[in-house]
Structures are given as C-alpha cells and as structure tokens.
C-alpha cells in the first residue's frame, strides 16, 4: 500500500533499484531478465565464445544430429550450429536494435513535437495514422521490392513500422506531463523549448518509452526473422536466425534440427523480451496492469 501512495506523491519514474527488485521477485520475469542478459552477452562476445568460423564448411561432418561432438548438431554444410547460432543471434539482435533505435528515435521526436507544438499535432498524428494503417509485413514487401532484398531493406521496413507506434505512446505520455505545473514554471523562467523538452519532458516520459521499446524489440525480431525466412532479409550464407531456419527448411525431413534450432532460439528470445516487457510495464506503471 505504501508503494502505491508514494507513486502518487512522486509522479517521477520509480527508482531503478526498486524496479529491478520487483522484477527479481517474480520468477517468470527474473528468468526472462536473465535470459535476455545472457543472449545479449552471447551476441556481443560471439567471436570469443564461438572459437570457430561460422562460414567454414566441413563436408565430412554434415547434418550431424544434436548431442555428441556437436552440441546442437551441424547444418548441411557441416557448420557447427552452436557457432552459427551465436553469430546468428548477433545479426538478428543487431538488426532489431538498429531498427528500434532509428524507428523509435524518430517516433520519440515526432511524439514530443506533436505534444509540445499543438499547431502541428494534427498534421503529424494524421501522418502517423497513415503509417499505422499498414501492417509491417507490407512495408517489408514494398521496401524489399524497391531496394532489393537484404538486411538494409528489413531495417528500413521495421524502422518505418515502429515510428508511428512509438510516436503515439510518447505523445500520450508527454501530453500528461505537459499539464503539470513545473512545465509552466520552466516556461515562466524563460527556458528554451529544446531545453525544456530535453530536461523536463523527456525524463518523465522514459518509463513508457522503455516499456514499449522492450515489447517492440521482441516483435521487431519476430518480423525481421520472418522476412529473412521469406528470403527478403539477410541472405545466405549470412548467419541470421531467420535465414538459417529457411536454409534448414530444405532439409526438414533428413535433419529437422537445422531448422528447429534457430527457430527455437528466436522463439525463446522473443518470449523473454515479451515476458520482460509485460513485467516492466506492471512494475513501472501499475495503472496499465491488466
């Protein structure tokens, strides 16, 4: 009960430590957090952890099943799937992260501008509504058609699809903050717009941005890997989880693990981000809890 009243007293974001402690007490969230941390570390340190080249063929050890000499087996070219997955995780996560930074960054900017300058609000939000009326898969198809299939096309598509979602969330959060007295006070002392947004508006909109980014990261990875699976994203032999699953599809009946291993990895990563995002939302904003 005391926690609830303190939130009301201080509308600022709860302290980081408190949020982390709350996440740690919930088993699902704690596991998800640990898994996310582990995958991020694995992706960053892939070259040191792997100890082998993800592109080097070994035709004497093709399609080995998991277990034994190769923990997750080998693919049709005899490449160790542990090594491929480590590098694949790297490409997939990077693809998601870059899209999220570009799309989310533009979305945050649009959201703040719309909330701050009411005159352009209508125009910006109609524009966002237009973008929002397209499913991400159509952006993926159209952009892959214009620029040709590849990781760049996927990143552009995912970024574009993220902008309107982020913009709406940030605008909503910023409008609430804009009504508070201290914004008026900051204006009264003659603070510049840019400084006001950066110093007072942005810090108080961080939790919805953070929650959305976590949940969106899972979706972006899912979409990106689906586009790669379709052949519109990362191209073989690039080690990317969706592209690896797509390659494995050709050998489904002889060596199902080639497709299953990267698919399960995508599933687990996305699941972890979704569980973590839900838990973060509950911890940071009890009002949104459903």
């Amino acid at each position, binding site marked *: 009960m005391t926690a609830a009243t303190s939130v009301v007293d201080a509308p600022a974001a709860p302290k980081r430590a408190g949020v982390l402690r709350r996440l740690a007490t919930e088993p699902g969230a704690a596991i998800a957090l640990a898994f996310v941390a582990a995958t991020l570390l694995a992706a960053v340190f892939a070259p040191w952890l792997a100890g082998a080249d993800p592109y080097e063929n070994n035709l004497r050890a093709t399609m080995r099943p998991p277990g034994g000499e190769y923990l997750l087996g080998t693919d049709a070219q005899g490449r160790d799937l542990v090594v491929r997955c480590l590098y694949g995780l790297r490409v997939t996560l990077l693809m998601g992260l870059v899209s999220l930074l570009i799309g989310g960054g533009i979305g945050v900017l649009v959201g703040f501008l719309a909330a701050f300058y009411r005159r352009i609000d209508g125009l910006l939000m109609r524009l966002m*509504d*237009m973008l929002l*009326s*397209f*499913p*991400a*898969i*159509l952006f993926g*198809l*159209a952009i*892959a*058609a*214009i620029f*040709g*299939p590849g990781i760049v096309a996927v990143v552009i598509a995912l970024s574009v699809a993220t902008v309107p979602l982020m913009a709406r969330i940030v605008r909503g959060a910023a409008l609430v903050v804009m009504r508070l007295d201290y914004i008026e006070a900051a204006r009264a002392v003659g603070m510049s717009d840019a400084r006001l947004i950066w110093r007072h508006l942005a810090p108080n909109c961080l939790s919805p941005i953070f929650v959305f980014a976590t949940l969106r990261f*899972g*979706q972006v990875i*899912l*979409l990106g*890997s*689906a586009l790669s*699976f*379709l*052949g*519109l994203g990362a191209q073989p032999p690039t080690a990317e989880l*969706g592209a690896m*699953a*797509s390659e494995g*599809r050709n050998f*489904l*009946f002889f060596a*199902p693990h080639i*497709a*299953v291993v990267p*698919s*399960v990895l*995508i*599933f687990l990563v*996305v*699941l972890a981000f*979704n*569980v973590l995002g*839900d838990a973060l939302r509950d911890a940071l904003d009890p009002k949104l809890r*459903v």
Partner: protein
Amino acid sequence: MLAHIARRLLTAIPVMFGVLLIGFVLLQVVPTDPAVVRAGPLATPDVIEAIRRDLGLDRPLWMQFLLYLGRLAQGDLGVSIINNVPVAQELGNTIGPTLELMAGSLFWSIPLGILLGTVAAYWRGSIFDRAVMAFAVAGVSVPVFFVGLILIWFVGFKWQLLPFTGRAGPIWTLEGLEALALPALTLGGVFVGPVARMTRTAVLDVLGADHVRTARAKGLVERMVVLHHALRNALIPVVTLIGLQIGFLLGGAVVTETIFSWPGVGRLAVGAILSSDMPMAQGTIIVLSLGFIVINLVVDVLYAVLDPRVRAS
C-alpha cells in the same frame, strides 16, 4: 451512421493514394525498359518507340502517374516480366486461396480465443487463467514458420495424417479441406493467443461494471450474467482489437503460404520480389494494401454498428 462511414472513407483516400504512389514507384525502379519487355525480343526500334509512346513513357513523370492510375482504373495492372501473364489475371487466381486460408484460420481461432479468454477472466488468477495467459504470450512470441515446420514434420511427414503442399481444390471437397487443414491450423494457431488475451482484458473490464453487479444482485443465473451481460458487452472492444490484429494475420499468411506452397497472394508477392518481377510485385502489394484498408474500414463500421457511442464522437 452514413456520415460516419463517409468520414472514414474520406480518411482512407490519402492512404490509398500513398499505396498507388508506392505501386508507381515500384514500376520506376525496374532496371529494364517496360516498352522493350512488352515488345518482345524480335521487335524493331520503331515498334518499341511506338509502344513507348503508347504507354506514355515519353511524357513527364506526373503525367505517367496519371496514365498509370487510368490503367489501374481499367483493371490493367501490367504484365509479369517473368511469364508474360497479365498481373490482374494472376491476382484473380490467388485472391481466392488467400481468403480461404484466412477464413479457415479465423473460423476456429476466434471462437476458441474468445472462449479461452472468457473462462480465464471468469476464473481470474486460477491455474487455468495462468495457463491461458502463458499460452497467449507464447502465441505472440513464436515464429509462424516454426509452428508450420513443426506441423509439417509431425502431422504431415511423420504421422502422414494430412497433406502439406499446395491447395487440392475447393474447400467443399474432402481433398480441398484436408489440404487447407495444416495451413489453417498454423495461421490460426498463432492467432488464438492474442484473441484470448484481448477477450480476457475486455471481459475483466465488464465484469467489474455496475450493470453486471445489478444483474447479479437481482439473482440472475451466473451463466446468464457472464454470457448476456458480460461477454456481449466485452465483444465490442474485441471486434476492434481483432480488426487491429488483421495486419498480424496478414504477415502470418504470407509466411504460411510460403511454407505450405499455398497458391495465395502472399506467396505470389514474395516470389515476384525475389525474382524482381516488378509489375507483379506492384500488383500484389496494391491488392494486399487495398484489401487491408477495406478490412479496416469494415471493422470500423462494424464497431460503430455495435456501439452507438462511437458514431456520436
């Protein structure tokens, strides 16, 4: 009511314009000269020049765009550069199977999702509720292709229960129905979770409302309270939320069609893009986008029909 529909139609116009512009841009990035393609390999320069004039390729771009819109209005979406088949004809052949797949998926996943969501909301916090919620999170996290590959491997390949490549005929024949089963299971499978989750939230909302308390207070049977007073009102937001998820469904359909070699628009689109068949890519993207816009409109109007308050605002 009519005013509401008219307003929604008006807002859809700029979006449709954007789609058509994208379609036009796609045709501009073709590395080959469309006139040369249309003329065929044996054409003389004179013929090519004539076709170029005929297609309006010697005019300024904005003029070409207008001509392009004119051709679209007549149902002329161009000709595939791979097999010379008119794009409109190919689209006509693939729209049916795509609708079939979507209908086959929604037919079972929406009722199941609504059922699971309602029961989960009613027994909030129970093991069943937790299981449904876990299933829902898993549903939005699992790659569609993974579900498809697993079903192909077990049901199709190992147990040999159902076919898993292509369409075998209309759904009213046994073969057609059998061929549709696995794709519809795959696509519907990832849709059950989100529907259950949305229903649960909506029902929870309504269960706390005054009119439900009144219904209980006057001694109504619990089944009547849940079905007539709670679920019926909860269905209103669920309809919109399902409408919003159609994009998610479309993405899943493209992947599902590709895995199961289902001859739909999504698979056609992917194939066209991979083979740089721009007229075909343009046609599929326009049709998918317009289809999506129309579905959104329908959902919106349906929402207004279900909830008179929407019309007023």
